[in-house]
């Protein structure tokens, strides 16, 4: 089985479990945030993908990390993936799951990276703005990413709307 098929299989399994549990929206959101944290944290990534660490130990790390902060379904799904040695594919599996969940609701995933958290009102207005700009119904996923420095970066499908200070600074550095 190829990696793509394996990722597809895991994402479908997680999707079905979350839907069966009736917590798809919540689990999807928690998984998405965990995936972004996983990508941005070298130590977390190392701890959950190091095959020298026993699977039980890796799962214990997940449960310690998410216990009380995420739903039990989310914790168990991540623990299952990490315990099966597929921790390295966790972001791809979760992204597939999010895309599948959005597709099930006829929505397009809109990933928004921001330096500071957005209020509910801002998220609503941003969702409306993105719908207006792309002509698609979107499933907004906000990621707080300090590397953005300021402003926002919105990715809807292949469309990237970049209003971040990071990009402006990079452009300024290039000109310099």
């Amino acid at each position, binding site marked *: 089985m190829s990696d793509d098929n394996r990722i597809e299989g895991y994402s479908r399994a997680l999707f079905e479990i979350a839907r069966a549990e009736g917590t798809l929206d919540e689990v999807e959101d928690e998984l998405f945030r965990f995936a972004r944290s996983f990508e941005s944290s070298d130590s977390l990534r190392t701890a959950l993908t190091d095959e020298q660490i026993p699977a039980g130990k890796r799962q214990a790390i997940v449960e310690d990390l998410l216990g009380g902060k995420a739903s039990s379904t989310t914790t168990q799904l991540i623990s299952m993936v990490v315990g099966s040695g597929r921790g390295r594919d966790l972001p791809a599996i979760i992204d597939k799951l999010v895309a599948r969940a959005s597709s099930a609701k006829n929505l397009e995933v809109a990933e928004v990276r*921001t*330096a*500071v958290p*957005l209020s509910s009102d*801002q998220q609503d*207005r*941003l969702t*409306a*703005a*993105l719908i*207006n*700009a792309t*002509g698609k119904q979107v499933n907004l996923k906000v990621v707080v990413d300090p590397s953005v*420095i*300021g*402003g*926002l970066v*919105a990715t809807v499908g292949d469309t990237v*709307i970049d*209003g971040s*200070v990071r990009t402006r*600074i990079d452009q*300024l*550095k290039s000109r*310099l």
Partner: protein
Amino acid sequence: MSVLGIIAGAGRVMSEEIITDSNGHVVTHSWIWPETAEIIYGSTASALVFYALYRFGWPAMKKSLDARTERIQKELDAAAADTAAAATEAAGIRQAKGDIESERARILADAKAQADSLLVDGRARLVDEVADLETRAVADIIAARGRVGDELRGEIARLSSAAVDHVVTGTLDDATQQELIENFIARVGASS
């Protein structure tokens, strides 16, 4: 004297009577002249002797004289030849001396020409090298100036980049963050 004369003389001699003195010694008819017979005999003997000398001695003597003359001539010829050879050799030496002088002059002229050529070439090469050095020096100066400029620009860019991060991050307070977010939402919402 003819043969008849001789015979007549001999007859007269034979007919002369011998005169002796009282002691029986033969006395001549003249205190200075010999007896006629003696003259005849003597003359005849002398003639025979001269004839024999002319006939047999003269050729040998003449041959000897000729040989001597020839030897002397040869010696004269050899001396003349030696003189001519000496003159030729002297002329050769004089010519050689002249040649040496001309060779010396030619060598000196060649040396001078080579020295002049070397001097001219050396000056030309020196001028070229100086020009080349000047060109390279100018190029090096330009390159160094460009390099220093690039390094300076790079350093300014590096410092500016570091300063930009620091300054921008320091000036982004909550109000500015919110303003950036609101501006983004407004801009995205305005585009369709």
